[in-house]
């Protein structure tokens, strides 16, 4: 760092309010907002994770173990709603995007700092309604929560007596929070890049955030209004999705998946961006094929718009439509594979350091490849008929969303933690937690592929005891316990390291992007002087990428 005199970090800025928490919850500083998202999202993550563990424990043996089928339905819905709407979708853009996007493009904040705070409060409001609906319950049942799964498919979600409406409303509100964040990021990237920071000189994480923001902008309004229509259908039957009034329930599924398939790219693309940053830094080698990485990001987003109906192959679409959607589903594998090849090629002859962020990145590559390939199984029309609605789908989804996006998030936390909080995470414990999470994850979900092929339906509370079912279910449940142990050790390690860890230097990993050029932790306005871009973004030959 070139500046010689000490600066105040964003954590120690002079308090404006007597009541300490107000200095955080009313702060418009993008870094503080990012940290608030971090705390909130991970709190929900732990809750949903523990719910997931009880689901696996319930399924450990045939017959009822802990609770009955109705409660089971509500629990898996709660698990999915929290994980998807409160954790995976907002985590990457809202935590790391908020914190690092302005720094990585050399700006002092986002374009609309106040709107950014509004987004956070919309998120909190939506989360409150979602969780409130779960806790308070509905008139017709003592235990709250919806029991429809996160897909809210009518007519079940119209007729269900559970708290579907509040959950739908929560998802609608959360959607507007992400839309506002997306608008903020797009405008920031267009208007606030440092001098000479051309689009093709931006770090790949910024690129993925940019593309993700566009997906959010294009897809979210459609699902938002669709969910509101479903709320109306429940309160004041409008007949849009009611066959007795001339409506078509399948139309809901189309309108839902038009968003919700691109939404999985909202979840995975920023994770891919973070993985790109980690892999290049820990190989000390420029990312292989920067431009093809950018193109494949845009490509995934573009093609991802034309694949939604592969969730609906069994709804009785025309064969032509099935063929087209199956074709595009296969097509999306190409840009995805380009990314995996580029990451692998970046590792080749790099000076690889296997620190905890890199371990999570490699775990990502392993899990995500399995998730991607099994996605091709499900995209094939004839195979999908067999596998649709089985545990195979659940395993595939978790391999991409947890093994992929989730591991990406963990890698990002380990990578950026020193910059965010100024302290180093205990590396030994971090590695231990990685191996527990990685092993637990694969022990939990890989058997579910086998279960699915054998015909174990998803979302079932119980199963008939069979010789080949029972041991596989048991292995899977043991995996869940290992995984949860690993995650809890990992999060505790963050909490302890946050206060007791060693002080971090400005650039502990030897990264080249701009966030490693500013102080640790960053000052309120990130930079004293506006930085100017000179070379390509991942230039490790330039004296290890360090400046000054």
């Amino acid at each position, binding site marked *: 760092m070139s500046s010689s005199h000490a600066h105040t970090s964003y954590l120690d800025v002079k308090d404006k309010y007597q009541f300490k928490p107000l200095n955080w919850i009313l702060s418009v500083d993008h870094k503080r907002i990012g940290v608030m998202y971090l705390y909130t999202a991970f709190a929900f993550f732990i809750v949903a994770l523990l719910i997931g563990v009880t689901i696996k424990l319930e399924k450990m043996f045939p017959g009822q173990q802990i609770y009955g089928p109705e409660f089971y339905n509500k629990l898996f819905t709660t698990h999915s709603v929290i994980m998807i709407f409160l954790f995976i979708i907002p985590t990457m853009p809202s935590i790391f995007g908020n914190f690092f996007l302005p720094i990585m493009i050399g700006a002092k904040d986002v374009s609309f700092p106040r709107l950014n705070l509004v987004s956070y409060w919309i998120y909190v409001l939506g989360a409150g309604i979602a969780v409130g609906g779960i806790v308070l319950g509905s008139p017709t049942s003592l235990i709250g929560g919806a029991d429809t799964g996160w897909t809210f498919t009518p007519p079940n979600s119209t007729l269900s007596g559970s708290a579907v409406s509040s959950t739908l409303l929560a998802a609608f509100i959360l959607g507007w929070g992400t839309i506002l964040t997306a608008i903020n990021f797009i405008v920031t990237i*267009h208007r606030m890049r440092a001098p000479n920071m051309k689009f093709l000189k931006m770090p790949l994480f910024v690129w993925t955030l940019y593309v993700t923001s566009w997906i959010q902008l294009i897809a979210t309004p459609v699902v938002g209004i669709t969910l509101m229509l479903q709320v109306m259908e429940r309160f004041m039957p409008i007949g849009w999705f009611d066959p007795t009034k001339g409506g078509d329930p399948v139309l809901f599924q189309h*309108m839902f998946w038009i968003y919700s398939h691109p939404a999985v790219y909202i979840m995975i693309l920023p994770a891919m961006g973070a993985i790109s940053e980690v892999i290049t830094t820990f190989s000390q080698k420029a990312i292989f094929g920067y431009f093809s990485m950018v193109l494949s990001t845009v490509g995934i987003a573009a093609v991802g718009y034309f694949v939604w109906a592969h969730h609906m192959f069994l709804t009785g679409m025309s064969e032509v439509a099935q063929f087209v959607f199956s074709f595009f589903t296969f097509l999306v594998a190409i840009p995805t594979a380009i990314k995996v090849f580029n990451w692998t090629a970046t590792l080749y002859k790099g000076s690889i350091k296997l620190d905890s962020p890199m371990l999570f990145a490699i775990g990502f590559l392993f899990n995500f490849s399995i998730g991607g390939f099994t996605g091709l199984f499900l995209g094939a029309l004839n195979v999908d008929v067999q596998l649709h609605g089985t545990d195979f789908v659940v395993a595939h989804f978790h391999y991409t969303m947890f093994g992929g996006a989730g591991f990406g998030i963990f890698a990002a936390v380990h990578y950026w933690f020193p910059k965010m909080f100024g302290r180093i995470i205990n590396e030994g414990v971090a590695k231990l937690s990685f191996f527990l999470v990685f092993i637990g994850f694969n022990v939990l979900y890989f058997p579910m592929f086998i279960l699915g092929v054998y015909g174990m339906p998803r979302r079932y509370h119980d199963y008939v005891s069979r010789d080949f079912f029972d041991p596989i279910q048991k292995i899977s449940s043991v995996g869940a316990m290992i995984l949860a142990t690993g995650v809890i050790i990992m999060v505790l390690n963050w909490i302890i390291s946050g206060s007791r860890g060693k002080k971090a230097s400005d650039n502990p990993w030897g990264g080249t992007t701009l966030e490693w050029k500013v102080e640790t932790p960053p000052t309120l306005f990130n930079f004293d*002087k506006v*930085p100017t871009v000179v070379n390509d973004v991942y230039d490790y030959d330039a004296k290890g990428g360090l400046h000054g």
Partner: protein
Amino acid sequence: MSNNQDGAFFYLGTSPHVEHEDKEAAKFGMWLFLYTELLLFGALFLAYAVYRSIYPKEFEIAASHLDRTVGTVNTIVLLFSSLTVVIAIVAIQKGNKMLSAFMLILTMACAFTFLIIKTFEWKAKFDSGIFLVPQSNIGEASAVLSALPQGQQVFYGLYFVMTGLHALHVIIGIGIFIVILVFLFRDIIHKKDVVFLENSGLYWHIVDLIWIFLFPLYYLVV
């Protein structure tokens, strides 16, 4: 580029951050937001397209029962209000605060007129027995509506939701213009800084534009 001897990605420039409000950014953000509004209604238009292709005859019959004159009057009222909001922007740019305020009030008056006409239109439909009831009093559901063919039932479901959501946007627009009027009198909006007013004008045009599509789809189908 003299700082670039060591070939690093960045050098730290000498100019400090300049404090300024980026008005282009504010407008850009507004356009993006309007785009989400279009997509929001886009989903509804999609549903309309689907059901109209399934029930073309029923849609034609149901649409013929909507009052075309009332629809036309409302279209004219809304179009006129778009004009007044543009005059309000030009007036304040030329420094004429009173004219600008007057035009804003006229815009709000048009919005109210639109809503009043819309209320009478809906009221007439309710009186003829076509209405939606809450799930809690489903027993009192309209016998007239449920006796209609399914295509017509869907038509009225679409009609009430889409015009209702549009009317909600008109109400929000009135709220925005009240805030803008306060800003105008407090000189937050002035000759040099009209970006708030411009953005709310853009919003109003979108509300207008959506009506331009709703009008033919519901009133001129026949």
